[in-house]
């Protein structure tokens, strides 16, 4: 970025920052288009909480001598709200207190005054006592019991507590929280640093600090800070329940605290947070909400095998996204933990929605397909999202509309489940039909914009995975429009990428190219996080695929090398994407005739997948397929056929027979069978490919042309001409639409057509076809290309046969030196040209 550009962005950003959304939009619209996206991104980033917000509170000063009636001994640390000091009460050297200094002044005290009576009622061995509060200059202060002990997690670590002892500690937390809940006080910011452990009579004793403070602060901060704090979170993302991201205090209840205890429990039993800090830090509210609602934390036993299944279930229940599915209070959680300690059956059961979704996916043998993730996401993820949305609406008290929406949502989801649950076979066709019939019809009835926004792209991707590109298109275009209107860079990049991939798979290469180029631009703006980098790499890989289709394998290679480099820098290695990249490299290298390199790339991709036990996955099949194509060109046709058949078997098991990949497998094997001289097999395979493709795609999909050509070539080779002319003319029609102008592939079909006419004795038509073929090749491949020379040679031969000696000899004279150069003086074609030239009248 240049300094001038930065200064322009900075000026626009500062001018727009204090304005409301409508004014911002107007101003953005008036801005130079090339600045707009960056300014918009900065305005959004201004509202995310990140590393810089963990820095100091403003005007952090030196150690004060005293605060209120307390003499400061030393600084204990700095919490989210301000400094904390160890202090002694004047005149009472033995009473040590922790004094928090909060830089929000009188407003805090006003609010605190109303809470004070409530807090005074909290008397529990697991809750730290708040003694007093007051004002000191501009600051408010709060004196509370000083706990000389570390956070609960540090205590457990330092004392090497075993699992049972850790669970006991959590039960103490539950006891304190339950006491407060019973008196109408929520904590709202439970986390290890608010759960300190000291020793009482040689036993660890948990003290919960800051009870009720978050509520007081929330009100103060919201009012005082206004716009700059909008969208920021008061609380700690790692311990926050999904409903706390809604910024609607009425959604937060005892179950939100229970969720936080669940996070602490999870952390204590397996040593990890349910959602890694790296995933949550620096996210805006929307993104945070998305993660909390969509990403299921792995069961703790995944991190530490010592954790048993029941404890996994307890954690899952405590961390359920939907408060209704959670323990309804700390007491319930504590009771289940007690059952666990005593070895009795716990009340928590496998998390229902996710459990059922996984079961469904397993039953349908889709577990190997990318579709599986999509289905789980669709079913489990959306259930949470829609319920959260419904809850959010509840707060707005739009009862009638809301209940209709809730009904729509649940009917939609129930339909998905109930129809799926019985004994559906599990082939792609059945699932597709079911999704089509049920999903699409249900989706049409969903008219709530927020719900559509979640359902539509997911369903679009699901359709795409199932190879139903047309249906996918409608949905992905809708999703794209929504993301373009007000999505983040990441969302926009994803929406464009998805639409681009779908266009690519429909053979709409210019559209795909355009969408993917724009996706790359958006992804580049999305920064350098792992998620963004992986997305950037994936988009590059797809752009490479487009470049290959557009006959630019060299630029494809550049994209792919960059993509792989980007991916290999990510930890943990996104091995699937790397394997996919190697697979595409193989295709590009093959187009460049670097066959040995292409084979090596395929083998590398296959090895990566085999290393990760992914030998039955569709991606492995894709890599096998690429290798088979290379083997064909290396004249190792038999090995190629074996690879084709293996990869096809995987696809059919995953997707069913009617899938574009299966069609493409038949088609490629057809070409290999041609090399082996097995024309009858070839004809049959091409026919199968054609039949599948016709069911799947529009009438002008380029793959259709490929299958038509293959079948024609098989028939021409067997000297049967039935239907060949129609097939070839149809293929030319498709290519003309796809390429929009002259193209080497069209020229090749013309060559086939000319051959047919010649074989049928239709000389004039053959002549015309060869002429057009030669011209198109000269225009697209260049006049010196061997294929251009060959078609001109054929043209000359036809002319000679028709008695047009002069023109035939002129052509022969023109191409002879080039043939000598390209093919050598003794090549068959060179000799044929010489024969024409030497022919006497």
């Amino acid at each position, binding site marked *: 970025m240049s300094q001038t550009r930065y200064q322009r962005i900075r000026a626009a950003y500062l001018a727009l920052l204090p304005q409301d959304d409508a004014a911002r939009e107007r101003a953005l619209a008036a801005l130079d288009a090339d600045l707009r996206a960056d300014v918009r991104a900065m305005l959004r980033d201004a509202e995310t909480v990140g590393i810089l917000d963990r820095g100091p509170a403003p005007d952090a000063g030196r150690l004060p001598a005293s605060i209120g009636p307390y003499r400061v001994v030393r600084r204990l640390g*700095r919490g989210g709200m301000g400094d904390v000091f160890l202090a002694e009460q004047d005149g009472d050297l033995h009473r040590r207190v922790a004094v928090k200094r909060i830089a929000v002044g009188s407003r805090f005290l006003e609010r605190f005054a109303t809470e004070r009576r409530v807090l005074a009622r909290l008397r529990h061995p697991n809750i730290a006592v708040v003694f007093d509060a007051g004002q000191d200059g501009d600051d408010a202060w709060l004196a509370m019991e000083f706990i000389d002990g570390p956070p609960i997690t540090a205590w457990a670590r330092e004392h090497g507590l075993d699992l049972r002892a850790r669970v006991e500690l959590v039960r103490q937390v539950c006891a304190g929280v339950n006491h407060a809940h019973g008196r109408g006080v929520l904590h709202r910011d439970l986390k290890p640093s608010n759960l300190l452990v000291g020793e009482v009579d040689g036993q660890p004793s948990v003290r919960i600090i800051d009870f009720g403070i978050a509520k007081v602060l929330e009100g103060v901060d919201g009012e005082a800070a206004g716009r700059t704090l909008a969208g920021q979170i008061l609380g700690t993302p790692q311990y926050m329940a999904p409903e706390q991201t809604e910024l609607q205090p009425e959604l937060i209840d005892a179950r939100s605290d229970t969720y936080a205890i669940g996070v602490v429990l999870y952390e204590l039993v397996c*040593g990890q947070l349910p959602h890694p800090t790296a995933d949550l830090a620096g996210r805006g509210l929307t993104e945070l909400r998305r993660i909390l609602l969509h990403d299921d934390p792995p069961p703790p036993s995944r991190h530490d095998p010592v954790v048993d299944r029941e404890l996994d279930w307890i954690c899952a229940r405590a961390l359920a996204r939907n408060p209704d599915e959670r323990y309804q209070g700390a007491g319930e959680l504590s009771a289940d933990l007690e059952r666990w300690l005593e070895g009795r059956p716990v009340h928590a059961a496998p998390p229902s929605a996710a459990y059922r979704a996984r079961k469904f996916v397993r039953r349908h043998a889709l577990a190997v397909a990318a579709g599986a993730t999509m289905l789980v996401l669709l079913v489990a993820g959306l259930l949470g999202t829609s319920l959260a949305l419904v809850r959010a609406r509840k707060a707005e008290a739009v009862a009638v509309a809301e209940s209709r929406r809730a009904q729509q949502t649940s009917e939609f989801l129930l339909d998905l489940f109930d129809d799926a649950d019985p004994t559906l076979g599990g082939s792609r066709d059945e699932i597709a039909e079911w999704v089509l019939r049920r999903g699409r019809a249900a989706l049409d009835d969903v008219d709530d914009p927020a719900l559509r926004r979640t359902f539509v792209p997911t369903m679009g991707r699901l359709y795409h995975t199932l190879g139903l590109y047309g249906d996918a298109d409608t949905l992905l275009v809708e999703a794209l429009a929504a993301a373009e209107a007000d999505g983040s860079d990441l969302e926009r990049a994803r929406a464009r990428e998805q639409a681009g991939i779908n266009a690519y798979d429909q053979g709409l290469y210019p559209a795909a190219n355009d969408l993917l180029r724009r996706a790359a631009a958006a992804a580049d703006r999305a920064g350098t996080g792992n998620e963004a980098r992986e997305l950037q790499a994936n988009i590059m890989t797809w752009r490479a695929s487009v470049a290959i289709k557009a006959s630019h394998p060299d630029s494809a290679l550049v994209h792919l090398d960059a993509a792989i480099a980007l991916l290999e820098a990510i930890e943990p290695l996104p091995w699937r994407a790397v394997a996919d990249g190697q697979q595409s490299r193989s295709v590009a290298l093959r187009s460049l005739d670097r066959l040995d390199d292409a084979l090596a790339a395929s083998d590398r991709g296959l090895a990566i997948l085999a290393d990760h036990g992914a030998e039955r996955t569709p991606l492995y099949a894709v890599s096998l397929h690429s290798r088979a194509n290379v083997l064909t060109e290396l004249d190792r046709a038999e090995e190629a056929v074996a690879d084709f058949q293996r990869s096809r078997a995987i696809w059919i098991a995953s997707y069913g027979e009617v899938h574009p990949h299966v069609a493409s497998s038949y088609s490629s094997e057809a070409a290999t069978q041609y090399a082996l001289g097995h024309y009858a097999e070839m004809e049959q395979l091409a026919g199968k490919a054609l039949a599948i493709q016709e069911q799947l795609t529009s009438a002008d999909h380029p793959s259709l042309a490929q299958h038509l050509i293959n079948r024609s070539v098989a028939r021409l080779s067997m000297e049967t001409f039935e239907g060949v002319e129609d097939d070839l003319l149809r293929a030319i029609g498709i290519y003309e639409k796809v390429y929009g102008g002259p193209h080497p592939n069209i020229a090749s079909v013309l060559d086939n057509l000319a051959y047919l006419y010649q074989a049928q004795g239709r000389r004039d038509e053959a002549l015309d076809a060869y002429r057009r073929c030669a011209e198109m090749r000269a225009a697209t491949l260049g006049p010196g290309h061997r294929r251009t020379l060959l078609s001109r040679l054929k043209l000359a031969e036809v002319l000679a046969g028709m008695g047009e000696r002069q023109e035939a000899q002129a052509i022969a004279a023109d191409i002879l030196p080039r043939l000598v150069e390209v093919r050598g003086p003794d090549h068959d074609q060179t000799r044929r040209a010489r024969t024409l030239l030497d022919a006497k009248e």
Partner: protein
Amino acid sequence: MATTPDHPDLPTLLGRIEDPAQTPDPRLIDEVYAELRRLAGIWMADEKAGHTLQPTALVSEAWLRLVGPDRDIAWQGRSHFVAVAARTMRRLLIDHARRKAAEKRGGGWARLTLSSAEDQVFDDPGEFVALDAALQELAALDPRAAQVVELRFFGGFGMDEIARHLDVSRRTVQDDWSTARAWLHGRLK
């Protein structure tokens, strides 16, 4: 608490850098770095209080330890001290983060540690390294804004102090901070 410092020549060093444009004495930087490191070590080893360790708390404490609250040093002295401390704090954190990252890479993945989200100032080393890099980028585009971040984030300067130190208005400092914050958050996503 506030003990007399056992670094007798420090006030002299501070006295020598009254001109804001002047590069701080490298000896001062080393001195401050050593003290901050020592303090950070104590903090990290003895994390009893249960409150977040923040670099700014370290800087304030280092000031107290090195200079003492009673020393009558011109405000500019403190201003320079904090500017230097901010710079060294940044260096210290980045060094620490790099070391941590190296440990993580070499330390074997099986090591099970209990990490609380609040320890993240030192627990997410990558983030600090990334911030440092992004801050260097920003310094090329907007040197003053980058300095504001350094003073505020690593040094714990208040807005008014930064304004006085940089000899600009408070409003300018706020604009710098707001822009830099949004810009860096965008970079670090």
